[in-house]
């Protein structure tokens, strides 16, 4: 096997040094009773060529299609330079940078990621990434409980947070005595926060903006409301490109902003790997979960970077760590940094604008075609439309015949919203694509 370098004579010579008669002897400490005693039932070893052919055949079972889907993953163009630079094995095949002297590439790149993320979200600091948006939200809420030093109380979530994220929060809070409560939606597609006033013991309030319906929440309003309480205001996002056009959460009162950064240079990859982003204020840094890179100097006074604040972490603090996270999404964070560096201030803003304008075009055309857009709040690159009853069949037909996926049916997630579809438009959707969709929908 080409990855295994040992020749028979290598093995013989090494066994001799060890004083063992065979490689089997090296496993002498494994009691007979726990041995498997049989060969694993796996497909026979494949050559590189057979493997490639087999996997290409499987990949071909995922045919190309034109999808108006967002709902947590947004399909953006990825510059060839991002892909190319990320292939550099010095970045790809290194471990977590425990030895800073030979890891300055990773460390500086992550420090830059943290900085760009803080700037993007309008907050002071960012960690070096979490797994994905959902776990970043769960970890943010756990962090809120640590900031407030609470061991019980209410965690209040908007019901317009991505439903999967809400579920992940529930999973993470399962072992705790905290109570998870949901805020309902208003008629305009935003969260109804009026119930907050009557709630006691609220430890954290989390709102997503743009929310699952694509609507921009009134973060400033909610922020000032939450600011009058003890609760920590956590804002979440699934589409950070929105902050190229709209005000970032940090300027709207968010104490922690978190979410999914996959839009920033990662391919959808059927949902993962993602990039969990988490930014907060410097005051809260020692309650923050996850790795973080800091600037320092070397023995000669030269500037350099290290993993820092490890005392929050599991390998030092063990059971009292701020999180159990160890392996994160470092490589995805670097991809995001390269992507943000490619776009720059100008490109990021223009791309956000283009996503917005294309989406507004589709909304306009749908309205003209007589479709109802039930929610009036401003949106970024996705929105909800109510299509004629029975559109499910057309939806399936369109997919089968033309490879067009006309948005996400919302009924599965929100049973009240039969015939409602969540449509997403990124820069990869052309006007012609939209006109085609309108035609099909109107027929």
């Amino acid at each position, binding site marked *: 096997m080409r*990855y*295994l370098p*040992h020749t028979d004579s290598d093995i013989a010579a090494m066994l001799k*040094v060890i004083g063992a008669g065979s*490689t089997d002897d*090296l496993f002498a*400490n*494994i*009691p007979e*009773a726990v*041995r*498997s005693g049989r*060969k*694993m039932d796996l497909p026979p*070893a494949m050559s590189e060529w057979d*493997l490639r052919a*087999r996997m290409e055949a499987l990949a*071909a079972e*995922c045919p190309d*299609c034109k999808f108006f889907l967002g709902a947590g993953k947004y399909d953006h163009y990825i510059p060839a*330079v991002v*892909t190319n630079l990320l292939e550099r094995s*010095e*970045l*790809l095949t*290194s471990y*977590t940078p425990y030895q*800073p*002297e030979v890891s300055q590439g990773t460390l500086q790149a992550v420090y*830059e990621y943290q*900085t*760009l993320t803080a700037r993007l979200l309008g907050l002071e600091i960012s960690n070096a990434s979490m797994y994905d948006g*959902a*776990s970043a939200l769960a970890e943010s809420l756990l962090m809120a409980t640590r900031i407030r030093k609470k061991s019980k109380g209410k965690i209040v979530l908007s019901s317009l947070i991505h439903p*999967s994220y809400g579920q*992940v929060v529930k*999973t993470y809070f*399962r072992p705790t005595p905290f109570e998870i409560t949901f805020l309902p939606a208003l008629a305009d597609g935003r969260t109804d926060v009026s119930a907050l006033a009557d709630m006691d013991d609220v430890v954290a309030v989390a709102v997503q903006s743009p929310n699952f319906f694509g609507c921009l929440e009134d973060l400033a309003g909610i922020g000032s409301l939450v600011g009058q309480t003890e609760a920590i205001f956590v804002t979440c996002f699934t589409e950070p490109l929105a902050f190229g056009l*709209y005000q970032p959460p940090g300027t709207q009162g968010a104490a922690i902003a978190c979410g999914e950064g996959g839009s920033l240079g990662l391919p*959808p*990859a059927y949902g*993962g*790997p993602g990039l969990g982003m988490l930014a907060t204020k410097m005051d809260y840094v020692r309650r923050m979960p996850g790795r973080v890179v*800091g*600037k320092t100097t070397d*023995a000669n006074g030269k500037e350099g970077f290290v993993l820092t604040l490890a005392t929050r972490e*599991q390998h030092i603090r063990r*059971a009292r760590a701020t999180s159990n*996270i160890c392996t994160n999404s*470092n490589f995805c964070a*670097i991809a995001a940094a390269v992507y943000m*560096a490619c776009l*720059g*201030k100008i*490109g990021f803003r223009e*791309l956000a*604008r283009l996503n917005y304008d294309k989406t507004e*075009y589709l909304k306009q055309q749908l309205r003209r075609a007589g479709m109802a857009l039930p929610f009036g709040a401003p949106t970024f690159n996705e929105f909800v439309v109510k299509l004629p009853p029975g559109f499910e069949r057309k939806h399936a037909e369109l997919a089968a015949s033309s490879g067009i*996926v006309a948005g996400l049916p919302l009924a599965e997630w929100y049973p009240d919203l039969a015939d409602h579809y969540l449509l997403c438009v990124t820069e990869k959707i052309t*006007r012609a694509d939209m006109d085609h969709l309108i035609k099909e929908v109107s027929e």
Partner: protein
Amino acid sequence: WDEPLLWEKGQSGRSAFSLPARDVEQFAVESGMEGKGPDFPDLSEPEVVRHYTRLSQWNYGIDAGLYPLGSCTMKYNPKINEAIAALPGFASPHPLLPEQFCQGTLRVMAELERFLAEITGLDAVSLQPAAGAQGELAGMLLIQAYHQARGDSRTKLLVPDTAHGTNPASASLCGYQPVAVASNDQGILSAETVAEFMDEQTAGIMVTNPNTLGLFEENIMAIAEIVHEKGGQVYCDGANMNALFGRVDMRKMGVDVLHLNLHKTFSTPHGGGGPGAGPVCVKQHLEKYLPVPRLMEKQGRFSWSSDAPDSIGRMHGFYGNFGVMVKACCYILSMGAENLQKVSELAVLNANYLKERLKQTLYLPYDRLCMHECVFTDKNQAECHVNTLDIAKRMIDYGFHPPTIYFPLVVQGALMTEPTETETRETLDAYIAAVEAIAKEARTEPELLRQAPTVSRLRRLDETTAARNPCLSG
């Protein structure tokens, strides 16, 4: 030379992004909500390329040389697997596509689930956890769900002193109080000690096997029996599975739940810190608690089901790190059963060879057959007033990545060394020679060690100041 920070480069007006053609008019934005956009630096494409090319040149990857970080299994990451994971059919599918557009991705996941069940000997697999620690958390939640379903609320969890560092934190996230269990003079757990701590308030035990001393927990069956007898569950941290392919049956070992690290054992790259993937494998009685959605097959068609009322719930926004799964699946298909078994044989051979050759030079606290890694300490060098850190930093000057240092905590000044099976004997010999040379320097010129590294772009970094006055963004 130095490479400035990103925002010290560039000029407003540049861009490395090719703005897509605008084919719609501009629409008004709700007043008061518009921001100014993030304050990113503006760079041209050549500047971006040069920046990251230069940064990468300051990094050490597995393609540059030996990376013997103990417990990290830094083996060669096959290039073909990267190429396959990048195929449009795998990289492009949106996770919410109708089933007919993603049968290929689903089949990859179904195959990988089956392979991992077969490799561990367990019954069911969830690929959802995004990393080892999330796999641990999943495991703990499963154990908790199991007890809760029996109306049994337990508060403690046994965690040996030779467990991985994440274990106590994962237990704690689940509300369990970790109870430290000491290993014996052989570096492994004795059944007696476990029996002493195990009671009906204890949810179970988290065993790392082989443990972080690189030793096989020989008493695992007896330990599992004790734990099970008290109603507990046995969790195995499978991060060290690289030692065991084809050798053991986790079921026979009494393991109820185990996580694997695809980015260690199954050759997917670590990416400087992730993404990884931490599938969790269980015996049948825990299957109904596995995270949702679960992958279902019906007449050769695959689909997702969330119909699992006992499930611990969702752990990931979608289905986990699919891109990582593809690579692990490719690895298993490239290897087959025989080569996988050989992987473990050679990993263990390499570790024992290093151990035998170096034990005259570095102090070996447990001088016995090891598995995939061996742990030395700096005891022999103490008289020269150099320590583990000095030895490790000096290795950099010899062109090697240092081993894991000061872990496990159960020995003082650990140098936890895991060569993996993809290293040649020649490379090990070169490493041994370097360690021997360093040990000699420790006696003759200890200052060389204390001042190391000198060949890297930076000298030793001041971690204390970094933590005391954190500067986390620029």
